[in-house]
Structures are given as structure tokens and as C-alpha cells.
């Protein structure tokens, strides 16, 4: 369990992709600004990097009106009906991954800790069926496995 002390000396982001299980354990992300149990969460470290990665991956390029180059074509491929087999999803992901990598590098700050610097992402599994696509990914930061996982903490309401 992380505490406020774990956040000292770090910058935090608002937690919207919630991950309750320990790091390294596969789980489905829950999208929520707040829940009945808390009034929002902040995160940092690899979790923050994961959010930054997913926001870019799932942002359709051109939809961010005043920054047309932000985002990828990943979901645009889905919209166009390009995804018919697992291989199609993997091809889309490969193109999008490279685009995200370049955008994350552009967003890097000189004093970013190594667990917030993108190193690689692997697409582990793709499942198509029942009108949905499940994608399992492993995100690796520059810290590799030598980082301390800092879990999101709840915000207090003022």
C-alpha cells in the first residue's frame, strides 16, 4: 500500500485508468474519474507512464483539433473495419506503437525518473470476438524491473 510519502519528490497525474491488482498481474483496466469509495485518485511512476501511453494510443490522430499530430491511427483502423483477424490488430498496433514511442520521447522532461520514461511495450495477446477486442500489453519503463511500484492513492474531497 502506497502512502503520501511515496509521492514526495515526484509529480503526479490524475488516475483515470484504475489498476487494483499488483504490478505484473494481468487485469482489465477500469475507467473512472471517481467511484463510490473515493473522490478520485492520483498516481505516479509507471502507472502515470501507462496512462500517458494509453491516452496517446487510443487518441485518434487528427481528433485533437489544435494538435493534429497527436495520437495514432490504432482506433481509426478499428473504425474502418480493418480489424478482421488477430494479425490485423497486431499490424495496427505495430504502427501505432512506433508513433506513440516518438510522441512520448517528445514529451519527456529532463528530470523524469526512469520509471516514467518509456522503454518498450509488448502486445501479449489479442482476442477478437463477441463484438469486442481484448488487448493484453506489457509496458516496460527505462527502470526495467528495478523500480518500486507506487500504487494510486485516494484524493480527499475539500
Amino acid at each position, binding site marked *: 500500500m502506497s502512502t503520501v510519502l511515496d*509521492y514526495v519528490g*515526484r*509529480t*503526479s*497525474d*490524475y*488516475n*483515470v485508468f484504475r489498476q487494483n491488482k499488483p504490478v505484473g498481474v494481468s487485469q482489465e483496466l477500469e475507467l473512472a474519474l471517481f467511484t463510490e469509495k473515493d473522490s478520485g485518485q492520483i498516481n505516479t511512476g509507471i502507472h*502515470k507512464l501507462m*496512462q*500517458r501511453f494509453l*491516452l496517446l494510443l487510443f*487518441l485518434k490522430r487528427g481528433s*485533437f*483539433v*489544435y494538435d493534429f499530430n497527436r495520437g495514432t491511427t490504432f482506433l481509426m483502423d478499428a473504425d474502418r473495419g480493418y480489424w478482421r483477424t488477430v494479425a490485423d490488430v497486431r499490424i495496427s498496433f505495430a504502427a501505432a506503437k512506433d508513433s506513440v514511442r516518438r510522441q512520448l520521447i517528445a*514529451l519527456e*522532461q529532463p528530470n523524469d525518473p526512469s520509471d516514467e520514461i518509456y522503454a518498450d511495450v509488448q502486445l501479449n495477446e489479442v482476442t477478437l470476438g463477441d463484438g469486442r477486442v481484448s488487448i493484453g500489453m506489457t509496458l516496460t519503463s527505462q527502470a526495467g524491473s528495478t523500480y518500486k511500484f507506487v500504487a494510486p492513492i485516494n484524493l480527499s474531497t475539500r
Partner: protein
Amino acid sequence: MAVTPKALNALNPTLVNSAINEITQRVQEDNPTIDVGRGVFYELLVYYHAVFATRQEQLIDDYRRSRSLLALEQDPDLADVDLVNDVLSNFKLERKLGSRARGTITVVLLNDVTVTFGVNSVFQAKGLQYVTTEVYTAKSEAAQVTAPTDRLITPTADGKYSFTLEVQAANEGSNYNLEKGTLVVPVSPPPAYVTSYAITDFTLGVAAETNTELLARLQEGIAAKALSNRVNMAAFLRSVDAYSRIVGMSIVGYGDAEMLRDKHSIFPVAYGGRVDWYVRSENLPTTKQMTLTATRLAENSNGLPVWQISLTRDVAPGFYEIKAIRPKGTTVESGRLTITEEIRSYDMTTTDFVPDVVSYEEAAYSRYQTAIVKFRDATQDISAYSVGATLEYDIDVTYMPLIAEIQTTVNSRDVRSYGADCLVKAPVPCFTQISFIIYKQSNEAIPDAAAIQLAVSNAVNAIGFVGRLYASKVQDVVHGYLASNSSVGSIDLFGRIRYPDGSTQYIRGSDVIQIPANPAKMVTYRTTHFFCRPEDVFVNVQTAIPEA
């Protein structure tokens, strides 16, 4: 809303990026532990806040600028109608409201059966819709005609039956104005229906004044409304509500070569004190049908008796031409009689003030113009009418409305200049016909010919007193209606100028037609206008361009 907020995706990108940078920096300074420049805070909070803030700033800026005349003139669409009205009301300028065209149509029937058109019965002409505003019931017995909207079915000279009713345009706009004789067809034809057409010109259709048009009148709003210099005179005329929609005017006075009336002295010099005021009150001349009494003359033409009609100065003041003479009651499609002679004159008799006019040329197209028209009639039994006998005829005359009314206004003692007289005239007409070929690819749709005709006609009629009609203007208008690979070519511009002395000159060109400079006959660019009806624009379409 006085100023319409811009769409969120139509803001100035530079302003949005500036706002993003400012908000990022401010929030970061207040909250050093938050990663504001990227991630969730940036994409979901900072970004949208910046977009909304920029829109608000631009809205405030637009509102502030829309109170400025300079900014409004640079960008007339900046502010909404109400705000521009507010600003220009400070200069005593009022926006002219739009109105719907109205007119009377004749419905021709095969039999005299009772026919009813309900309210909002739809008629179509040239792709535009017109509706009835009352219930019209046409009846064959005069005794049955009781209500104001009951119509009596009367037999026509060619063995059919007809009645009239009034229709109104479905929308405002000058494109709904129709010329007399235009087919106006009911969407649901009644029993025994043969045809239906406009028996009067459809007039009064105008669109509400746009910001651009209103701002164009700004100088007149500021100017003193008096018969002084040309801007003042235009401002005066348009300040009178009835004359506010005048299309164009040209004022010829002292020192102008076209001014002949100030040279009436025995000395060959201009003394000044005379003004010829050419006023185009409508886009196109109006055709008026009236019934006049003709007298049979002793002379014959081609073995047929010649009849004579007198057009006094009040029947169609400033008229241009007599378009048709028909035996009374005959329908338009039954043809017209042959005019053998037309003698123009003038009538200055009055106890009130009149301008100084000494010839029919000077009086041409003014309210003082008169005419005697002779024509032959093969439809009557010669033996039934001796010399001196009278008979009524329907006569169609084209004229520019309001000429007499304006003349009366400027003649009044409290308006007219103490040192000059004003003779109000309709512009010398150059009746224009335009033809061209649209070359298209086979895979392109056929362009909308009716819309092109109307647009070209409007563009030509909007040319002021400049005396030149260039083919490029036609090309410019037509290209707005063409597919990307279509082109327009073989443009033929043709004009017929009717001089004040009654003579005719034809001008023709493929690049430009130009009003000749003939000031001795009062024909120059200052006195002459192009008139082009939509029907006089001939659109030919050829599939000629090979596909790529």
C-alpha cells in the same frame, strides 16, 4: 446573441496554443507536484479549458470589434443582424426588411366547371414555389360570386375559359419576382385545367438587407438628405421609405456631356441649373397590362385597318416599350397584333412646377413622356368598324416603377433645389442577352440551368452605371455552379440599346460589350444600364471534355 460564438474547432490555433501554454504554466506554478504538461491533466483538463477560454476571449473580442464601424466594414459578417442594426441606428440607418413577391395568375380551363384552390395551394414557376393565401373558388355564374375571393369564370376569345387568382412567393427574395406571361403551374391541377400563367409581373420580392448592403449605405446615412451633391441626393432619395430599395442611380448635371437641358439658350454654352436623375428602381422593368381604347383610323396597312392608341403620361410613367397589343380578353398565347408606328412625345401641362423639357428626346423615360401607337388588327371584322369607331384592347407595357412618384417628390417646393430643376428618368435600357456553352465530362452531373440563369441575370442587373459587361463576370458566376472539371466557353454577349430618340443600336461581343459614348443622344455609361432577364440567359451544355 449579438455575436455568434465560434465553433470549438474554428478558433485561431495560435490563440489556442497560447492559452494552453499560459494555463499550463500558471497551474504548474501553483501546483508544482502535478504533471500538468502531459497525460490526463493536460489532455482532459488543460486542453479543453484552453479551448473554451479562447472561444470566450474571441467572443469578447468579436463583440468589442463589432461595435466598431471600421471593423464591421472590414468584416461585415462579424456581428449578428441585431448588433449591426444597433450600431447603424446611431447614423439613422435602418435595415430594409425583406418581402415576398406577389402577383396575379390566370388559370385557363377547357370547360366552365367550378374550381377551388384552398389556402396554401402550391404553384411552381422556374423551380420556385408560390402559394395561395386565401381560398379561391372560381364559379361560372355571376350570381354565385359573393365572397371577395370568389372568381367568375369568363370565356376567352379563343373558346376556352379563365379566371384569375393571387399567389404569393413561398419565401422572401428577388429571385421570386416573375415576368408577366411566365408559366405558373399548380402542383395539383384542377379539373379541365389547360394552362396557367402570370398575368402581371410578380414584384416586391426582396431579400432582407444584408450586413454588407447595409454598411454600403453608411455614407448615405451620415450624409445630409438634401438635393445637393450626388451623395446627398442619393441619401435623400433612399431616406424616403418608398424609395429605399432603389437599385441604382446616376446623376447627370452641370459639366456633363450628356446634359442637354442646360443648353437651351441661343448661346452654345451650358448654363447649369439642370439635373437629369437616372433612377433604376427595380432590377428589371415591370410589365403592366392595361385596357385602353383604340380608335380606327382612315389609313390601312397591308390591307388591314389601322387602329391608334394614345398612351398618356400617367398610364405607365417613363415606359420603355409596348410589348404587346391584343384584342381585349384574349389570352397571352393567342399572339399579339403588329405595331406599325410609334410616335413619342411629351406632356408638360400642369399648373405646378415642371422641369425644363423641350423635346421628346429629353422627356424620354421620364414621367412626362407620352406616345401614340398605331397597329393593325386582322382579328376584327372590317365592316363592323367604320373610321372613328372605338374598341378596347389589352396592352402590355414595360416601365420602370416609381419614376412618376420620385418626380413628384423632387418637384415639391420644400424639397427641390432653389437653383435647379430635376428631371427623373428611367435609365436608358440596354436589353441584354447572354449565351454560353458549358463543357462537362460525361461523368459529371448536368448543372442547374435555372439557377445559373438566375445568378447570371442577377449579376448583370447588379452592374451599376459603369457601361461595361465583361465575359469574365459571366464566367465568374457560372463557375460557382460547375463541377470541378467543367468549363464555360463560347460566351456571346448581346445588347440592344433603345436610345431616347427611339433609335436602336445593337452591341455584341465575346469578351466585353460596352455602352457607346454618344452624349449628344444622352447615351453613355452614365445614363445607360444593362437589363437581363433570366429568360435571356441561354445555357447550353455539351459533354466534350474527355475523362482523365
